[in-house]
């Protein structure tokens, strides 16, 4: 039973405070749906969860262990799908996928690629080079990557972009299967993806104005010595 949680996360992008004080928790089989207006920090949160960016404050824990302590282990259990499909125009779909399987050390890689391609119904495209794919087909190839190799956590950033209605239904089906195997899915989407009772995390709730946050930081610094004194007193008692 895996457990993925974040507490009191603050994300700073450049000079802008994206969100603050965000906490969440998910267990094996859970799906978390990220909602929020454009720029609310859905992508930023997924990048934090992937370990691509470090949070300004707060921490992310997998089974109670901070993900920053063992990044390799976190990367091995996580599949991240970003905005970009990372498909090389001169390589075939199969060659494109092979690299990611090899990097994960997947055994019996070719059958695994076949299964992933079949699951996304793009098996007929296996020998087509990236440049001839439509944007929906590219997205499906990127999704096929997520199916290759063991993982416990899927982080999907707008997975439905470019997908038609049927593909969205298939994606929902894949997510359900993955949850059935005990996986955790965190995803952001603008359309309704037919996922069973996801936990909804609305990022608009965690938007805080910069001024307020800065003031709070000052307070914390002022308070810090007093707090420390108080806690050491408690410890003494």
């Amino acid at each position, binding site marked *: 039973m895996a457990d993925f949680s974040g507490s009191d996360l603050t994300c700073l992008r450049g000079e802008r405070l994206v969100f603050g004080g965000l906490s969440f928790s998910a267990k094996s089989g859970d799906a978390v749906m990220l909602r929020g207006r454009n720029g609310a920090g859905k992508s930023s949160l997924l990048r934090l969860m*992937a*370990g*691509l*960016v470090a949070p300004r404050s707060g921490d992310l824990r997998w089974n109670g262990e901070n993900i920053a302590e063992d990044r*390799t*282990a976190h*990367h*091995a259990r*996580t599949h*991240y799908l*970003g*905005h*970009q*499909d*990372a*498909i*090389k125009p*001169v*390589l075939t779909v199969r*060659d494109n996928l*092979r*690299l*990611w399987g*090899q*990097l*994960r*050390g997947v055994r019996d890689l070719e059958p695994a690629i076949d299964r992933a391609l079949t699951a996304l119904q793009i098996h007929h495209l296996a020998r087509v080079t990236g440049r001839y794919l439509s944007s929906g087909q590219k997205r499906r190839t990127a999704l096929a990557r997520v199916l290759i190799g063991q993982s416990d956590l899927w982080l999907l950033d707008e997975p439905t972009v470019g997908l038609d209605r049927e593909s969205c239904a298939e994606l929902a089906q894949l997510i359900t299967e993955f949850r059935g195997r005990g996986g955790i899915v965190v995803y952001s989407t603008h359309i309704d993806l037919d996922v069973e009772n996801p936990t909804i995390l609305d990022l608009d709730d965690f938007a805080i104005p910069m001024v307020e946050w800065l003031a709070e930081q000052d307070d914390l610094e002022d308070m810090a010595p007093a707090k420390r004194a108080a806690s050491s007193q408690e410890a003494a008692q």
Partner: protein
Amino acid sequence: MNGFLAILQRDLRLALRQGADSVMVVAFFIVTTTLFPFGVGPEVNILARIASGVIWVSALLAAMLSLERVFQADYEDGTLELLTLSPVSLELLILGKVLAHWLTTGLPLIIAAPLMAVMLNMDQDGFVTLMVAMLLGTPALSLIGAIGAALILGARRGGVLVSLLVLPLYIPVLIFGAGAVEAALLGISATAQLQIMAAILLLALAAAPFATAHAVRQAME
């Protein structure tokens, strides 16, 4: 190790399919070297005197020409992001990419160099030393260049910036590379220069992957 081979294989396959990069680097090297006889005149003694320097400077410029592309394409299409997130250490993957870069740009330069030496009327006593020096020098150029290539990710006009960042760091390779050939031409042993070049290569091999990985992670922020 599998990750290292996987990325090496993919980069070589990409280079093979796209092809143009290697050819362009060698063509640039040949054209630049050819400009010198036009500039300084066809006096064979003068050309023989400056040959080693000209070949090295042209090789530096040619190697630099391809640097911008080392990470740029992967950065733009999101591949670099996924490489950072793969369970294989980023340093190892970068080493694989640098080796692929050297095989597709450094190695062709070494093969083309003796031809240019003949054109510049260099004495043939210097040929072997020239090739050995380039064998030690060009991998160091790729390694050092990778740091610059990673630092410019996300910057506008990256190509110009990378030359400003990297060319000063190439100076030691230039000095000892040209020095080794000079020594061989004078009939003295070039061992000292070659040993220093080997030392530069080892230092770059030890430090550059870490510096580059750090710069790449910085670019992901």
